C-alpha cells in the first residue's frame, strides 16, 4: 500500500520537531585474539584490529544519517572486557592498552569506546583486580574510554568486597577529576547482571558468545512519545496511554533497526541488536520526566511516578518486541538525571529524591544513572548505595547499575555542568546515616533462592 501524506508528515515531524534520533550506533569487536605477554604488543594488536574492523564506521554512519534523514547522535565501539584479553600480559599492566584504545577511538572519530571492564560478580581474577586498581589512572589519562565493573548477578549474588572497593574507586575518580566536578565518574558504571550486548555507555562491552563483530543500535525518542501523549489529551484512560506509547515504540524501533542494518551492511559486519530504549537527552522536550508528567503527574518524582514509569517501560517493550526480533541490550526506559532536563529540574526542586530514584529503577532499565552527590559522601556510603541498587537487580533478575558522581567541594542544591550529552544537574542530598559496619564485613551476599531455577 502506498504511503499517505499523513504518514509521511508524521515521520517528518517525529524527526524534525520531536527529536527522534538514533542515540547510538555501537560496533562490538571481539579482541580475545589480541592477547599477548607484552602489554605494548597486546595494545598494538588491539588497535590494529579495531582499525581494520571500524575504519569506515563513522563515515558510513554519517552517510546513512544523511540518506535516511534520522540523526545519529553518538557512534561508539564496544570491545571484549580488557581484563579478559589483557590477562596474559606480563608484567600485568593494562594502562598501555587503555591509552591505545582511547587513541584509536579518537583517531576514528568515535564518541566513546567501552570495555575497560571486569566481571567480578563472584570472585575477581588477578587481571580483574589489577584493572580495578588502575581504573582511576585509566580514566584520568583518557577521554573516550569507558569502564564498567559487574559486581553481582542473580546467579552469583553480590560480591561485597568488590562493592566496597567500587565505593573507594569512585571517590578516587572524582578526586582525580575535581577540576571538572568529578566528570571521570561519568565514564564508570557498576553493574549487577551486566549484559554482553549493551550498546549504551558507559557500560558497553562486547561479551563472549557475541561473535567476532556485531553492530547494535539504541534509539532515543522521548520527544515523540511526549508529542503523542499530549495529542491524546488528559481524559483518556491509562490503557489508551499504554496503547499510544506501544505504537510509537513500534515505529521508532523499526526506524532504529533499519538504520542499524544499513550501517552494518555497508561496513560488512553482522547486525546485532536493537536496544528498546527510551534514552533522554538534555534537549528541551526530549525527557522521560516530561512523559511522566504528561500522564498526569504534577512533578516527576512525586507519588505515582513508579506506576507511571512501569507503564511506560512495559509499553516500550511491547511495541518494540513486536517491531523487531532482535531486541537486546538493556531494553527499557532510562532515567539518567543529568541527561534529562526535567528530571534534573525536579531533583533540584526536591520533588525527585535519591530514594525515589532507587524505587523507580525497580521498574525500568538500569538504575541510579548520572546522579551527582556531595563530594564528601563517604566511600562506604557510595558502596552502600551501590549495594542497594545491585540488590534490586539481584532479586528481580534484571540489570541494575550505578553511575554516581560525588562532585568535589559541592553541597546539596548546587548545580554542576558536564556539557554535551552528559548534561548537568543538581547535587542531590544523600542520607547521613552510615553503613560502614555493613560494608566492612565484605564477603558475599548470597543469591536469592529463586535463582536456583533448574
Amino acid at each position, binding site marked *: 500500500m502506498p504511503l499517505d501524506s499523513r504518514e509521511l508528515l508524521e*515521520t517528518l515531524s517525529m524527526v524534525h520537531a520531536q527529536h527522534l534520533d538514533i542515540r547510538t550506533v555501537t560496533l562490538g569487536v571481539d579482541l580475545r585474539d589480541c592477547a599477548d605477554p607484552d602489554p605494548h604488543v597486546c595494545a598494538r594488536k588491539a588497535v590494529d584490529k579495531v582499525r581494520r574492523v571500524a575504519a569506515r564506521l563513522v563515515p558510513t554512519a554519517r552517510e546513512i544519517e544523511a540518506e535516511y534523514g534520522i540523526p545519529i547522535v553518538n557512534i561508539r565501539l564496544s570491545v571484549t572486557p580488557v581484563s579478559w584479553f589483557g590477562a596474559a600480559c606480563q608484567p600485568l599492566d593494562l594502562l598501555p592498552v587503555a591509552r591505545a584504545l582511547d587513541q584509536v577511538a579518537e583517531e576514528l572519530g568515535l564518541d566513546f569506546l567501552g570495555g575497560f571492564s571486569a566481571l567480578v560478580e563472584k570472585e575477581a581474577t588477578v587481571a580483574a583486580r589489577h584493572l580495578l586498581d588502575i581504573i582511576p589512572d585509566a580514566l584520568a589519562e583518557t577521554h573516550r574510554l569507558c569502564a564498567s565493573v559487574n559486581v553481582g548477578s542473580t546467579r552469583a549474588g553480590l560480591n561485597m568486597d568488590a562493592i566496597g572497593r567500587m565505593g573507594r574507586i569512585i571517590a578516587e575518580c572524582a578526586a582525580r577529576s575535581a577540576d571538572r566536578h568529578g566528570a571521570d565518574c561519568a565514564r564508570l558504571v557498576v553493574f549487577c547482571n551486566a549484559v554482553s550486548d549493551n550498546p549504551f555507555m558507559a557500560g558497553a562491552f562486547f561479551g563472549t558468545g557475541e561473535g567476532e563483530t556485531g553492530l547494535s543500535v539504541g534509539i532515543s525518542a522521548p520527544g515523540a512519545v511526549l508529542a503523542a501523549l499530549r495529542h491524546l489529551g488528559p481524559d483518556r484512560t491509562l490503557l489508551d496511554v499504554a496503547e499510544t506509547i506501544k505504537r510509537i515504540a513500534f515505529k521508532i524501533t523499526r526506524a532504529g533497526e533499519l538504520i542499524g542494518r544499513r550501517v552494518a551492511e555497508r561496513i560488512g559486519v553482522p547486525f546485532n541488536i536493537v536496544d528498546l530504549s527510551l534514552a533522554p537527552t538534555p534537549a528541551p522536550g526530549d525527557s522521560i520526566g516530561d512523559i511522566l508528567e504528561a500522564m498526569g503527574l504534577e512533578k516527576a518524582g512525586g507519588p505515582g511516578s513508579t506506576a507511571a514509569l512501569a507503564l511506560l517501560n512495559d509499553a516500550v517493550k511491547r511495541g518494540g518486541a513486536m517491531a523487531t526480533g532482535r531486541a537486546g541490550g538493556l531494553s527499557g526506559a532510562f532515567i539518567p538525571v543529568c541527561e534529562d532536563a526535567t528530571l534534573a529540574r525536579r531533583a533540584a526542586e526536591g520533588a525527585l529524591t535519591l530514594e525515589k530514584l532507587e524505587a523507580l529503577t525497580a521498574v525500568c532499565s538500569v538504575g541510579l544513572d548520572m546522579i551527582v552527590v556531595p563530594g564528601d559522601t563517604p566511600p562506604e556510603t557510595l558502596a552502600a548505595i551501590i549495594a542497594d541498587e545491585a540488590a534490586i537487580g539481584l532479586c528481580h533478575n534484571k540489570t541494575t547499575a550505578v553511575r554516581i558522581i560525588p562532585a568535589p567541594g559541592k553541597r546539596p542544591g548546587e548545580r554542576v555542568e558536564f556539557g554535551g550529552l552528559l548534561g548537568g544537574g543538581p547535587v542531590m542530598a544523600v542520607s547521613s546515616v552510615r553503613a560502614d559496619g555493613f560494608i566492612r564485613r565484605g564477603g558475599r551476599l548470597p543469591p536469592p533462592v529463586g535463582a536456583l531455577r533448574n
Partner: protein
Amino acid sequence: MTTPRRLDQEFADQIERAGSPPESPPGTRIVLAVIGKDRPGIMAGVTAILAARRANILDVTQTILGGLFTMLMVVDTAGMEGSFADLKRELEVHGQQQALSILLQREEIFHAMHRL
C-alpha cells in the same frame, strides 16, 4: 440465494497489482518534502532539478497548510544521474536560495515505520 458476481478478471488483476509493492527496488525511492511560503513556481523549480538529473516522480501531493506551501513527493532515483548526496546538496542549495525547507530521505524508512 445468488452468489456474489466475480469481478472481471482484468479488473481483479489491476487491483492485485495496485496492492503489491511498487516495481522499482525499495532502496532507490526517496521521499522529498518541500515546505515554504506559498508563491508561484515552487513546484516548477524543484521538478526542474529532478528532471535535469533524470529522477522520476512517482507520486506527488501538494497543498497549502495555513499559508504554507507543502509538497510531498516520492521520487525514483534508479536511473538518476549523480548520487543521492549530489541531489541532496543541489536541492539544499536551491532551498536556501528560495527560502524553502527541502528535506529528502530514503523512502524505506517510512515503510519501516508505517508498514508491518
